[in-house]
């Protein structure tokens, strides 16, 4: 739900922003953005990420129904969090300038599925501390792997 809302806003905003430019300009813009953020992932470049940098508050879990809705929305958007990576920023720029409605919706589904995978891993882990360690310490060390995984997908998004 949260990811869907964000992609909806990005496409609405993007449909206005991209109107004056030919497709090739938008492709170059997204490609340059992707390269800059991927170089940041590899520690070649260093700059702060645009982010809210606030955790989802604990009290939402104690609010019946709407607490779950709020938690889902804030988790799904990834907007209320400390972001260790710039890859979602690349996706946001790509959706803003290149995605159709259908593609943006699928991107939202993919993002939400990835967020849900984390919660599922936590739920299935025998030792919650180990799961916490995996996501808090091990995953951020896999930046290069994520760059390798992201690179071909970003290239395909740009070339269309």
């Amino acid at each position, binding site marked *: 739900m949260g990811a869907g809302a964000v992609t909806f806003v990005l496409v609405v905003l993007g449909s206005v922003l991209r109107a004056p430019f030919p497709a090739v300009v938008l492709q170059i813009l997204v490609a340059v953005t992707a390269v800059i953020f991927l170089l940041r992932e590899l520690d070649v470049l260093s700059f702060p990420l645009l982010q809210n940098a606030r955790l989802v508050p604990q009290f939402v879990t104690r609010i019946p129904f709407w607490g779950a809705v709020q938690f889902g929305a804030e988790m799904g958007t990834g907007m209320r969090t400390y972001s260790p990576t710039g890859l979602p920023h690349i996706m946001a720029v790509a959706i803003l300038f290149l995605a159709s409605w259908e593609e943006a919706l699928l991107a939202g589904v993919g993002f939400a599925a990835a967020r849900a995978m984390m919660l599922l891993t936590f739920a299935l882990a025998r030792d919650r501390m180990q799961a916490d*360690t995996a*996501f808090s310490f091990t995953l951020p060390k896999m930046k290069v792997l994520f760059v390798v*995984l992201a690179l071909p997908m970003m290239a395909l998004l740009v070339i269309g």
Partner: protein
Amino acid sequence: MSDSATRTSVRLLVPGLALIAAAEALVLYSRVAGGDTKGFTWLVAALVAGFSLSGSV
């Protein structure tokens, strides 16, 4: 962090990473085979981006 703790935490991440790698391989294979993968490419790209954010709640 000890070697065994690292191994355990990596093991927890393997299913998610394997799913992403398999989806990505499918996109690339379909693309090479001349299929239309555009929508699925957006989904997989977002899957990579979303999973890389997994340490954050």
